Structures are given as C-alpha cells and as structure tokens.
C-alpha cells in the first residue's frame, strides 16, 4: 500500500504550492491514473512517492514503511519508474540498460541474464535487440525497453509519468494495453500520470483528478463518467464520452450509407 498524508510541496518557498496538503491511500494491486491540466501538480505528487521530489511537509509511506526512513536510492530500487523522456543510457546497449537496477543490487550474472531475456519477451521485443544501442530503436521500442528496465528488479510498485505520451496513437494504444496486461499478470500496484483522459478511463481501476495541487475528484472511471458535482471535472470526463459518441455516429452513418 502507498499512503500519502498531508503532503505539500512548494517550489517557491511557500508562496504557491505544486502539491497542497494531499492525503490519499492506494491499495495494493490497484491501477491508479492521475489526470489534470498542466501545472496541476500530478507529476510532483507522483515523484514524492519515490523521493525524486522531497515533500516539504507530510508523510509518505510505501508498503508500511516511511519513505523518508531509507536512503532514496535504496527506495528507488524497489519502485519501478518509467517516464515520457524514457532516458535510456545512450552509451549502454539494450541488455545493459535493462539490467541496470539488478546490477546495482548485485544480482548474479546468471540471474541477470535470465531476467533480461524474460523481460524482452514480456515487452514483446525480439531477443536480437539485446545488443542494439538505444539510438538504433524507434520511439515505441525505446519505451518498451524503458518499461522493461523499470520492471527488472521485480518491483511491486510502478510509477509512470506520461509513459506513452510521446508515442504515435497506435503505438500508444498497443503499449498501454500490453502494460495493463503486465500489471495484472505481475500483480503490480501502478500509479500513472497522464494527460490523456481516454487512456486513464480505459486502463485504470481508479482515477484521481488534480487541480492547483489538490485532488478534486477520486473514483472508479465508471463512477466519474456517470457525473460529478465539480463542473470542471465533469467537463474533463465528458471529453472521452463525447469523442466516443461522435466516433460511434460516424461509424453508424457509414454503415447506413453502405
């Protein structure tokens, strides 16, 4: 379980807050999406969980243990992290990139090799890619490697920051669906920040909507789609519904004309 209690973070010495007094609990094996406009604080909130951002106040607990109680690097080795920039190490090949965290944890060479092969299969990359350099891969292939790298040390928690945001729509859809399958298969707890409401609705068990550093809506996708007292939240979640209806109408019209 991940638990945030009264977490606040300001980047200008307290004049304004990126995250303001947020408390939320995320149960094991949940797939939670965080949505909201840019600057709403969703990325900052995500990064307080693996201490890429330190909260100014409040308390973050990961699997029953205060995050602040251990060294940040040790904490991060237990938590997978994938983000839009991907950040593959350009001087390491695919196998070396994927195996980096197990190596930091001093796994044996045999365990590392077995795990790397298992992971390229899981993210549907050919084994022949292991010796390639990141610059030789397409964007979608790079993010597959990025996801494999974040899963390498068998974390139980995955943090994802717009992981598929820079990819073309088809790749984005494929990777999203495949990741959801991995989430279920490995019983992961996933927190994913996205600006794509449709993606959030289709993939997650639960959606958090943020505005100006605060959580303004929290619920299952279906419940939020059914309506919410907050007007902006309603408008935000109306978008996928309206899009879906327009697509259905287009398809319906075509069916009639044929």
């Amino acid at each position, binding site marked *: 379980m991940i638990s945030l209690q009264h977490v606040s973070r300001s980047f200008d010495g307290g004049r304004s807050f990126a995250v303001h007094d947020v408390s939320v609990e995320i149960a094991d094996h949940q797939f939670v999406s965080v949505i909201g406009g840019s600057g709403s604080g969703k990325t900052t909130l995500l990064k307080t969980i693996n201490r*890429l951002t330190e909260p100014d106040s409040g308390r973050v607990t990961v699997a029953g243990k205060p995050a602040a109680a251990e060294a940040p690097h040790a904490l991060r080795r237990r938590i997978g992290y994938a983000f839009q920039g991907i950040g593959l190490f*350009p001087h390491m090949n695919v196998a070396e990139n994927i195996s980096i965290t197990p190596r930091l944890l001093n796994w044996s060479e045999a365990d590392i090799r077995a795990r790397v092969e298992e992971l390229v299969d899981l993210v549907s990359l050919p084994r022949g890619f292991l010796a390639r350099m990141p610059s030789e891969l397409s964007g979608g292939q790079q993010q597959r490697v990025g996801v494999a790298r974040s899963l390498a040390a068998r974390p139980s928690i995955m943090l994802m920051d717009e992981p598929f945001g820079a990819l073309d729509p088809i790749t984005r859809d494929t990777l999203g669906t495949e990741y959801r399958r991995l989430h279920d298969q490995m019983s992961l707890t996933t927190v994913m920040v996205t600006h794509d409401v449709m993606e959030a609705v289709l993939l997650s068990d639960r959606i958090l909507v943020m505005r100006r550093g605060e959580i303004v809506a929290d619920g299952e996708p279906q419940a939020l789609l059914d309506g919410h007292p907050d007007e902006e939240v309603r408008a935000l979640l109306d978008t996928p519904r309206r899009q879906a209806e327009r697509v259905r109408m287009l398809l319906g019209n075509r069916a009639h004309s044929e």
Partner: protein
Amino acid sequence: MDERVVSAARLLPDYLSQHVLLSAASLALGLLISLPLVVAASRHPAIRWPVLGFAAVAQTIPSLALLALFYPLLLALSALSQYLFGFGFSALGFLPSLLALTLYSMLPILRNGVTGLLGIDPAVIEAARGVGMTDRQRLLRVELPLAAPVLMAGVRTAAVWVIGAATLSTPVGQTSLGNYIFSGLQVENWVSVLFGCGAAVALAMMTDQLLALIEAGVARRSACRIWIGAGLLLAGIAAAAMALAGTAGRHGYLVGAKNFSEQYILADLISDRIRATGRPVTTRIDLGSTVAFRALAGNDIDVYVDYSGTVWSTVMGRKDSVPRARMLQEMRSALRREHGVVLLGALGFENAYALAMKRDRAVALGIRSIADLARHAPQLTLGGDLEFFSRPEWRALRDRYRLSFHEQRQYQPTFMYRALASGQADVISAFSSDGRIAADDLLVLDDPLQVIPPYDAIVLLSPARASDPVLRRALQPLIGAIPIQLMRQANYQVDREVDKVTPAGAARWLSRAAHLEAPSDGPD
C-alpha cells in the same frame, strides 16, 4: 651535417625527456585538481562562475610571467617551511614550472568538463536517479562516460598548450626544449631555435594524436583504441623517465649561467674543466639575473660567474661606490657571512654597464663622455636591454648626469645592436666585454663622475661546495687568467652573424688562447 644540427641533436635526449616529464606531470596534476572541480561546478551553479573565472584569469596571465611569479612565491614558502619545519625545498626548476603549467592546463579541462556534464540529456539524469543510482554511481556510470568525449577534447587542448608553454620554463631553471630556443635566440643560432620549435611541435602533435585515439575510443566505446593510445603515451613517459634516470643517477656538478653569450661560454669553460677531472657536469643555462644568485645560495646550482657591481647592488643592496679592491674584499666577507657563498676570485676582465654610440655619430655631435651626452640627450633615443631601465646603475646615471632622453626603448641584447646600427636608437646600454663594441666600431662613453661601479667577472661557489677540493682545483687557474681582449674575441665568435662558433667552441678557443692547462685529476 651542419655542426649546429649535430650539437643540437646531442642535447635532444636530455631536453626532450625533461620536457616530456614536466608536461606529463603538469597535465596529470591539472587533471587531478580539475576533475573534482568539474564535478562540483556542474552540480553547484554558485561555484561554477568563480571556478571558471579563476581558470580564465590564470590563462590570461602571460605564461612567462606566471612561471616567473611562482619562483619568488616558492622561495618564500621554502623559507617559511625552513623556519617552521626545519627543511626547505628547491624553489628553482621543476617545482615552479610544474605549478605554473598545472594552472595553465586547467581552463580547457574545466571548461570542457563542465560543458560536457551540463550537456547531458536531463532525461538520462532523471533515469539514473529513477533506477536507484547513488550520486557517485550516477557520476561514474553515466555522467563521466557521457561527458568523456567533450572532456577529452579539453584534455587534448590542455596537452598542446602545456607542451608549448613548457618551453618557457627554461628561465626559471627547468631544462626543456625551450633551452634550444632561448640560447639560440641569444647567440642567433637559428638552427637551434628551429630545432627547439620543431621538437616541441612534433611532441605536441604526437601527443595530440594519441589523445585523439583515446578520445575516439571513449566515444565509440572501443577499449582497443583506448589501450593503444594510453599505452603509447605511458611508454613515451616511461622512456623519458628512464633516459633521465640514466643521467640523474650519477652525482654531478651543476654549473649555472645567465642568459647571454658570455655566460654560456664561461659555463662551458667551467664545465670542461670540471669534466676534465672525471666528474659529471650539467649546466643550467638561461637563468634570470637574480634567479641565478638565489639558486646558488640555495644550492640549486654549484657554481656560476656573476659580476661584482651586480652583486654589490642587487644582492648586498649597496648604493655607494667604493674602489675595486675594497669592493671585492667587502663582498667576499659579506657573501660568506650572509649567504655562505664563496667568492673564489675575479677572472680578470670587467663586463660593466656602459653607454655606447656609433663612433661617427658621436664624433659628429662632439660627444665623448656621458657628461657631453647629457646636453644632446633630449634629441636622442636610448635603447636599453630588458633589465637596464630597472637597474640602480641607470637611475644613478640618470640622476647624476641629469639625463633626459627623447625616448627610451627596450630590446633583447641582440636586437639592441641592430637598432643602433639602423638608427632606431642613438645610444645603447652596452657591456664593456661585448665583442660587438670593437666589431661594430662603437664608442664607449667615458664616465667622468665614476657613477658606474666596477663589474669584475667573479666566480661564485655555493655554500654546499664552499670547500669542495675538486671544484677549487679545477677553477683556481681561471682566476685572473682571462683578459678583456680575449673575452671580447670569444664573445664575438658567438655573436657575429657569419662564421658563428658555438659557445662550447668559443670556450675551447678561450681556454687555448688564455693558455689554461687542463686540470689534472689529483688524489682527493
């Protein structure tokens, strides 16, 4: 082959290996200091500008001045260490050169290193943190490997600069390829100058190419390239160290010389006589004028020839003028008492500062003495060597004769005579033992007020060699044995433009002409 090429080539192993070791040590130390600063400066913007600014300022100080400044600084530190811990260190030669060149090597390393680290894609840094690297792991596994190509380009620049600037370490007593250039320039041996430049350029280019190989190896992650490049560089350094160990292993005498022909000839004359006793000798030429005495007093050299008037004013700080015999007597006891330095004796000629004009011009203006000159001075240009205008002799002349020239210019001694010949200067500061006085038909102006003190050439021995029997036996016969006419001729053989003789050749001629017998190697 030209005799000058042969004699230059004979000096190459010593000069080149010293140059290589000095450059390598400076670059290594520069890297050692710069790398932590690079990391700190890339992580903390607050110290980035101070660090880069300091390196840039060090870079703008002319390298010769930087080298010169480290000498007095180290002398003071050595004196302090002597006082505090009971031991001093040599402030001459390797140490000041090493420190100045290290400082000089730092800017390109710092600038490229910081540029390289700051140029890394922020996403890669975030990923390094995200996968759980510590700061140290992120630096060693990600940041340094990615910044390495840019950093290596900086190291290459630094290496080329250091190898070039190391030629300037000669005047602070560090043998380098600059010895060819400084002494060649002095005696107009252009073969020697070109030899020195060529050797330095070849060394710089070879080093640059090997570093380029390492750079390419780093960029393409080819361990083979890195090892070949590093291996060849280390082999070069090891070869230099072995070449030097071969000569430095023996305990030898160190003969010093300042930076002009007469000093080279006398240093060779002294070296030949010591060598004739079977003892090894090394020369340290091109020492700055005051550097030489300090080096002797500090036992960095064993013997050299100075001039009584110079020692009187710059070492003893005396401003009065006393008769020759009394001056030598007072000097002998003062040097012994205050510095432990032994004044072995005077060689027999004087090399005094004088003012000289072309004879026809002096006759036309009716000038015979400095007193006559004073009347015409406002229309005339005075040329002085690099030291002249800062010396007390010049101030004394100026004040006593009320000299006020239209213009004063500074020249390298060689170019000063050219300036006089071409009319750029009407009067020059000359040395009374200079062969060019007779050769160019110059008139040395009288000094009726006797403002200029005597400048007898005197042999000085270091405190450590004060009662060295070999040195005394080898050098005693020189005392009073070299008349001014012979010294002028020997100087002219080296200074003239055609049919030049090397200082070593002139020294052999002088030894024969003065009927100096080679010393026998008697029992110690």
